[in-house]
């Protein structure tokens, strides 16, 4: 009987096949890893300022829906948001999920507040939106006033994210820790802190997705078939008792802030300032009843500083509203004065 030869050739072919399969698998894995790494690396190569630009674009141009929590101090609330960008039109619907459900619905620059008692409140159109300079949209925070750096990468809501530290270099503004979705740049989490490191405001998505399309129904407020009442919030009226050519100016502006709307006509009584990240509005009006008491009313990170001033025989009320320290708002308010000579 011949000696049975161990089937080395079969074994060789089998081993070779196995080896080849494993080699292919390994190669495929390596290619994927390199591809992922190169993608991540290209994102991580973005400068902090580029991440902020990406964040700004995403806020406007992405379709997204999600649920988030917002807290300031002891107060915490959860909300749902739906945002669509279609045919150059930005639409948004913000719904409160705690307590009675109120909503804010936005279509372009038209804003509507919907209350649980079927009251619909809109803002009267004002000139500010028409006179905002184009530069506002492109105005990025200056390195002279903020230290920007990428702090790290992690995952948030099952999405890869990048964390950025935006640290104020002086006491005229607050600091931020921003967490952005790595793919789209959308802001997923935000922590606003004062100079002492105390968190004044926190915002964080608990769930978010980015659908290709969003239906009109998702952007409609819950008013279908209900009897509603409509109200209009008037714009901040200027005081017509001033000489007709009176215009307004501020003699002190915190470093790094610039006015981003034109107030080049007599009667323009609303000024808007930004440093590329923080914003404050100045409202100038006549003194009347129910004005805010003089001083700082704090609503989380937002201050509303009210001041009454006099110029000769004329008296006027200034209110500075923004996400800046109360001291900054106070100094701005005190510096508002009329310009009589044209």
């Amino acid at each position, binding site marked *: 009987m011949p000696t049975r030869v161990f089937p080395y050739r079969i074994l060789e072919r089998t081993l070779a096949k196995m080896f080849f399969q494993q080699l292919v698998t390994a190669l495929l894995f390596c290619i994927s890893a390199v591809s992922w790494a190169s993608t991540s690396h290209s994102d991580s190569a973005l400068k902090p300022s580029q991440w902020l630009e990406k964040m700004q674009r995403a*806020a406007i141009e992405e379709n997204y829906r999600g649920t988030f929590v917002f807290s300031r101090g002891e107060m915490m609330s959860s*909300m749902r948001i739906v945002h669509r960008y279609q045919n150059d039109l930005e639409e*948004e619907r913000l719904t409160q999920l705690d307590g009675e459900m109120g909503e804010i619905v936005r279509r372009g620059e038209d804003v509507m507040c919907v209350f649980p008692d079927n009251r619909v409140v809109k803002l009267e159109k004002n000139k500010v939106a028409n006179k905002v300079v184009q530069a506002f949209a492109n105005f990025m925070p200056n390195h002279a006033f903020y230290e920007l750096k990428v702090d790290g990468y992690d995952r948030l809501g099952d999405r890869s994210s990048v964390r950025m530290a935006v640290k104020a270099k002086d006491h005229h503004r607050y600091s931020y820790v921003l967490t952005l979705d790595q793919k789209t740049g959308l802001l997923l989490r935000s922590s606003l802190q004062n100079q002492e490191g105390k968190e004044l405001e926190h915002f964080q998505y608990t769930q978010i997705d980015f659908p290709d399309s969003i239906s009109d129904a998702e952007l409609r407020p819950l008013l279908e078939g209900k009897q509603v009442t409509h109200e209009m919030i008037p714009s901040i009226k200027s005081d017509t008792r001033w000489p007709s050519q009176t215009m307004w100016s501020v003699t002190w502006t915190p470093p790094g802030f610039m006015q981003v709307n034109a107030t080049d006509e007599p009667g323009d009584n609303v000024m808007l300032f930004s440093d590329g990240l923080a914003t404050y*509005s100045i409202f100038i009006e006549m003194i009347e009843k129910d004005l805010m008491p003089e001083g700082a009313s704090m609503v989380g990170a*937002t201050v*509303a500083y009210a001041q009454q*001033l006099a110029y000769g025989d004329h008296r006027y009320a200034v209110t500075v509203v923004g996400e800046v320290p109360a001291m900054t708002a106070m100094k701005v308010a005190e510096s508002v004065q009329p310009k009589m000579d044209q």
Partner: protein
Amino acid sequence: MDERIKESISALMDDEVNELELQRALAQLEDEDVAEIWQRYHLARDVIRGESYAPDMSASLSIGVSQAVSEWIEQDQQPLKSDQAEDNATAYSLPRVGGLLSLAASVIFAVVFVLQNHAQHDVTFTNVAQANDQQDNALEVVANRQPKIIDQISDDQAKRLNHYLLRHAEHSMLGARQGAMPFVRVASVNSVGI
């Protein structure tokens, strides 16, 4: 020391000095004796009023205050504070507005007081701006100014506040910095409603 100088300093603190006396006082303030008198008068006033000033020793003042004040006095366009502002004496404690001269006096006081106490570390200001805001330091230091924090408002005032917040959110939206954040802030306000 010339008694007239002491009288000028005293009158300056009481807002009862004319321009000639002010100029004389400004010219004399570099004199150490005069500066000491200035300091003692202000300390005495502080004790009577129950106020305290705490200069930050790290702040450095390098502005020509006397010159700046002199120039300011020549101008006549500084808004005056309202009567209501003068009554708010708790934390909003600017010097009583008797005119530009009061503010000038306070600025001069800041320079002299801080310079005199820099080596002694007798007192320290609180809440003084950083060294890179030296011009702001002068006014903040002298008055120990802090914005008055409002903790109670009426329902009508709350409604007005909401209007401001909504308008400001509308403005912030125009810059599209943080997406829906401006309106999130408004929506989270639990108040009598807009």
